[in-house]
């Protein structure tokens, strides 16, 4: 059980109502007693220490907090954690498999699709959602699918190339996953 902030201080008050939720995060069921107002992004970051999900704008615009919710991309900074009770959430930490990086991750590195790295986890989650649904997207498909995610560093061109790179890798004849070290 993860009780948010309990490693920092005792709960602020016994009066604060909490609710027990169980959310499958990156394939593992996690149970927590949480304040109903707690945002999903904060449960992931502070409660579960999955700090790869970033909060950028607080208003659902920048997409740095994008995670997969039952396979669909959502912005976890404007979703209550209680809404995720009984659902599956995948974060950037769940993108790689034990055998290696997801092709989207490899693509971002190979095509220089990131600079400061802050938007990258959300960007990659949105890209994965696209590729799960549309394995051979056009450039326009990619640009449209990522239009909910802001990047201030790259100008997007290399991000688009990274996603197309991953699409080719996923669909290509050579689907042998590379090891982490080989990336």
């Amino acid at each position, binding site marked *: 059980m993860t009780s948010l902030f309990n490693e*920092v201080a005792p709960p*602020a008050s016994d009066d604060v109502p909490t609710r027990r939720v169980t959310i499958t995060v990156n394939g593992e069921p996690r149970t927590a007693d949480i304040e109903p107002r707690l945002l999903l992004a904060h449960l992931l970051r502070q409660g579960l220490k999955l700090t790869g999900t970033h909060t*950028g704008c607080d208003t659902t615009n920048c997409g740095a907090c994008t995670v997969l919710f039952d396979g669909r991309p959502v912005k976890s900074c404007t979703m209550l954690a209680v809404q995720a009770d009984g659902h599956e959430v995948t974060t950037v930490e769940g993108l790689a498999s034990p055998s290696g990086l997801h092709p989207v991750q490899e693509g971002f590195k190979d095509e220089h699709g990131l600079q*400061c790295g802050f938007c990258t986890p959300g960007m990659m989650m949105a890209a994965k959602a696209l590729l799960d649904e549309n394995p051979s997207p056009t450039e326009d498909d990619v640009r449209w699918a990522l*239009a909910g995610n802001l990047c*201030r560093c790259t100008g997007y061109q290399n991000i688009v190339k990274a996603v197309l790179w991953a699409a080719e890798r996923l669909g290509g004849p050579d689907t042998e996953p590379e090891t982490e070290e080989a990336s």
Partner: protein
Amino acid sequence: MAIDEVKIGGMGARQKRVEDNRFIRGKGNYVDDIVLPGMLHMEILRSPLAHARIRSIDVSKAWDIPGVRLVLTGETLAARNLAWMPTLSYDTQAVLATDKVRFQGQEVAAVVADDPYIAKDAVEAIIVDYEPLPAIVNPDQAMAPDAPLIRDDKANQPDNKIFDWEVGDREGTDRAFTEADHVSTIEMHYPRSHPSPIEACGSVADFDRSTGKLTVYMTSQAPHIIRAAVAMVAELPEHQIRIISPDIGGGFGNKVPVYPGYVISILASILAERPVKWIEDKTGNLISTGFGRDVYLKGELALRKDGRILGVRMHTTSDHGAFFSDAQPSKFKIGLMHSAFACYDIPSAHLTATGVYTNKAPGGVAYRCSFRVTEAMFFQERMVHAAADELGLDQAEIRRVNFVRDDDFPHRTPFGFLTDSGQYTKCLDLGLAAIDYEGFRREQAAAREQGRLLGIGISTMTEPLGAGNSREYDILGIKMFDAAELRVHMTGRAILRTGAKTQGQGHETTWAQIVAHELGIPADDVVVEEGDTDTAPFGMGTYASRSTPVAGAAVSMVARKIRAKARKIAAHLLEVSEEDIEWELGRFYVRSAPDRGVTIQECAMAAYSNVPDGMEPGLENHAYYDPPNLTWPFAAYIVTVEVDPDTGVWDVLRVVAVDDCGVRINPMIVEGQIMGGLTEAYAMANMQFITFDADGNCVGSNYMDYLLPTAWETPGFELHEVVTPCPHHPIGAKGVGECATVGGPAAFVNAVMDALKDTGVRNIDMPLLPDRVHQALTTGQDVSGAPPVDPEAS
């Protein structure tokens, strides 16, 4: 025999970035990711009003909330002489307001609590009684004779003027104007913008009373400057201050200054004796931290009929907000605005500048530019464009006629800078060929017959990057140089540290490439560390595209010191005199017997196991690099657009960029920097701006109002290069990170103005929103100033 430099990741290698390995796994370590035992959370209460006297602040209800540990107001700070702090431009800035609030979003109080939700609750519970005062939102209002005084806290501040400044040759310029065939005059406003990295600012302050040590993790592009500032402001001993900039989620100049939030979190940690985390929200970032631009220009060019520019007159009026806290070399009141027209051979120029206070956020940071050069180059290229149209000259030709020629270097610019190298015409011609200039002009004429509006815009410029040298450039007296420290371990692996701080520029990859170039140690064998003032050597930080020009040069120089010592060790190992030793990448050999040699790795091992008699063991060193001059990259940006005459919407057809930033260490990273810069240029031309209503309410305080381009609207970019090595940089490199943000906006605006050429419209101020373009199209009149906000609305 010699090593293939590209294979070891040296100069010119498109080396994949080592920092990506953590970022793509979600394992970056940003300030908000840092959790310390017993850490408390801080939230700031901001003023809802732009100008108001504070009658009282009632914090009692905040204290009543369980979990609240501290409530701080200006009074708390004033008791410790911390209510005000010095700015980087010799002014003062309120940390927490004591007397008045002077802009919307100003820091008024802070709460420290067990968790951030409680801190937010408590901030809401603070009651402030304000007496509203009239808000001043532009320079005209500020300079009106009866204007309310914003800075009544300052002695000898009778009005809202901050400075009058002047540079250049007034008499010579006046003469040029009397001799001119034509005088071209234009007025413009470069609107207020915000760098807006996706990650806002934040800090985790940790004061340990038992040791007296203060550790602050923070979003700073310049941690050593912060350490000095904290030592001076908070009067703490500098050796007991450790500033750590962990991974930074973008900076673009926004993370150079010292902000009240940092200072308050430090004081809170001292008072609470626990670590205190402050994470700014997006609105706080947009309405209170360093903005860019907000400058008005009156510009005049004296021209001959053939387009030759004889003289330049510029007068700028800049709106600095409530505190003059521009982050720039302190003695240049309007930054390096006088770098304008550096790529043109012009006999005389004169600039006057006036700066004023308004009830808007302070800052005036160099937003992805080297201290106001973005404004300088935008004004320059818009002035040249307008003059060419007036004289009926071709846009490319007027630039060619005025360019400094390749054999005219070193060249003294009209305002006195010294440029050193460039091939300006070659760059422009390469860009024109790439976009098929003549072909486009034909297409444009044909389209016009059908009522379609096509336009092409050119922007060419050289800009000063890499502040200093230390003779001319300092911040509050601290000279602008940088340092690097290199330790080569006995197995030939190495650690390099510099005083710069990467925020996405890829230093961890690039600096290792410089070491590989100088020593032949594979880049993969060099780890790079930055951002921790306890371990990194002194440096002025990363902004103004100064990392490669200054810190990168220091990396080169320290590696050469290592090589010099390794040469002595090689002579010892090879049992010959040092004079008989030759160097090729990664290896010393005997001149007369090239097969007899030792690798740099063998020298490293010997440095710890077999040094010659009398030699100090080990293989490490440091270098301070004070650049002889700025570097002057050149760029030609050419954009084509189509404007919809019915709606004013304009679509970008093509963007061609030709950049000459000297020798490219990692072309992949350089191209990434250019594309990022072009995107911000497009953003400012098209949509991205901050404005204020008549009451001083900030319009643009969140990403629903402050528009940033997404992948959908951002155009594609076609990149080209010319290489003119910098003659004074150890590896011939010039700065590049900001070129496209600086030179890009004018290319977009010039393209739209070119499309509107037949309408008689000479200027639309940025951003070129569809309604503004439509207004110009339908009225045939210029559209000036910040986009109007209904003055009745409040």
